[in-house]
């Protein structure tokens, strides 16, 4: 597991959908940095100008609902966000984030406590979110063993590569 990382929080509400994370008019590219230029522009048009590399998006319930576009977690990565903390995630966004390597943390208590501008420190190995501004620390429920294994292998692409190699050997 990687070491701790920190950044400033940008707080949004419930049901942040993939159409506002990356509007469909930009889905003519799947380039991470190109998509990153338009991240969150239909809900907060200055987001990419005011945020700094390493900052975090914090939101309420059902973050990433709507379309299956993997461009949504790619846009968030491309903008330079280090992770997303939410009370809950929509299921396709959840899978996509793991697959493209965007760290996501499901923690209703942290999502409720953190406000825009708060300094937040994440300890992935300890499974904690610290709101340094408010002096509060929250425990994140771990991923299921299957997903932990997938993440440990470097994500879905290395996982599939290994599975294909195993099949090649057994043939």
């Amino acid at each position, binding site marked *: 597991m990687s070491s701790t990382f920190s950044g400033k929080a940008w707080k949004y509400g419930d049901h942040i959908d993939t159409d506002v994370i990356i509007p*469909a008019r930009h889905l003519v590219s*799947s380039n991470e940095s190109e998509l990153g230029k338009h991240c969150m522009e239909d809900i907060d048009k200055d987001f990419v100008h005011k945020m700094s590399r390493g900052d975090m998006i914090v939101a309420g319930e*059902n973050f990433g609902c709507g*379309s*299956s576009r993997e461009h949504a977690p790619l846009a968030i990565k491309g903008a330079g966000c280090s992770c997303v903390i939410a009370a809950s995630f*929509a299921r396709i966004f959840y*899978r*996509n984030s793991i697959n493209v390597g965007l760290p996501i943390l499901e923690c209703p208590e942290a999502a409720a406590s953190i406000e825009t501008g708060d300094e937040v420190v994440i300890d992935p190995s300890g499974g904690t979110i610290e709101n340094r501004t408010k002096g509060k620390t929250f425990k994140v429920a771990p991923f299921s063993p299957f997903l932990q294994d997938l993440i440990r292998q470097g994500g879905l692409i290395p996982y*599939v590569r290994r599975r294909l190699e195993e099949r090649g050997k057994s043939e």
Partner: protein
Amino acid sequence: MGRTLVSAIIAAHSSQEAMEGEICQVKVDFAFANDITGAPAAASFLEMGAEKVFDPQRCAFLPDHFTPNKDIASAEQTKNGREFAKKQGMLYWEVGRVGIEHAFLPEQGYILPGDIIIGADSHTCTGGALGALSTGVGSTDLAAVWALGETWLKVPPTIRVEFKGKRPSWITGKDMILSLIGRISVQGARYMALEFGGEGIEDLPMDDRFTIANMAVEAGAKTGLFVPDGKTLEYARSRAARSFTPLYPDRDASYVRTEIFDFEEMTPVAAMPHSPDNVKPVRECGSPEIDQVFIGACTNGRLRDIEAAAKMMEGKKVADGVRCIVIPASYEVYNAAMDKGYLRTFTEAGAVVCTPTCGPCLGGHMGILAAGERCVSTSNRNFVGRMGSPKSELILASPLTAAASAVTGRLTDPRDVASAEFFNTLEGK
């Protein structure tokens, strides 16, 4: 405890027990991508070191979102997907033959009862109308399926949904699913499945069932499945591209809960801006003025939808100041609507008829909204900026409500412009 339909389907595709909450490796019957998700899936596939898709007859690429291509970037993106599909020998349908994936694939018999279907598009859940476990994923997950013929699925808990009584003909599948989402919210079924069954849906046409399953994802669901019945099997058998085995829930299946609707208490409804769960009876929405009407999309671009709208608009004119855009979801629908004279009804009323495409539904092309404009749409999402400007407004409704609104220029309950006799002819009585 018995199995729900989704658990029965997962168990039939896995060597695991497939009890609720378990993550299972499952065999996939069919896997597809579109012109937005296909090219990144192809790139991930190659990055995985994969050489051949698991079965070219079970993998498909459908260019349906920006169709025909709207600009150079979308043309390049489609070209990448097309070249990959041709090289792999996968199923591919060219512009002029292809339809919106979630209407076209069931028509062509590639989505069948008992199947597991994975699509790189969130509205893949539409296939649930046929009693398949059909669900959307992103491009990398889809690439993994193309490479392995398998994916991982967690067995979700299920909410059972039943409708009681006799459905009046002004209540469409769209009113039924919007009523459900309005009741349980856009995350009411998050990480769950919806299972539709019961006597109230026995006479519900397949096209309405597709509409209902299509919007399961708008309640956060993994999929929305109809328990197969005579209508399902008749539809599937007449079109099947391969053999299939329908599956059913056990009588003692365990559900999170059952949501029951009584047709007698239902009215035509609309989802007001900016959420699919902001649902109200159309007559209680204050009749807002509108600039555009869109009739189409994977939600409501099938023949029964086009027919209902055409009959509603027959001999009438689209109101001054309103643009009405009609897009049949496939050429099967387009040609049937042409043969029945519906396309002429639309153009004589002053509506536009376009070639099958997702088009305006996702703010792609063919009817983008300017700031301050309002549209009544038969599509499935009314998020901020979905059809164009983030300052535009979208109201989701049935084809009957959309067509009635096109004629009056305001959001209108279909019963306020059509007679009881009209509704009788609608159901072919």
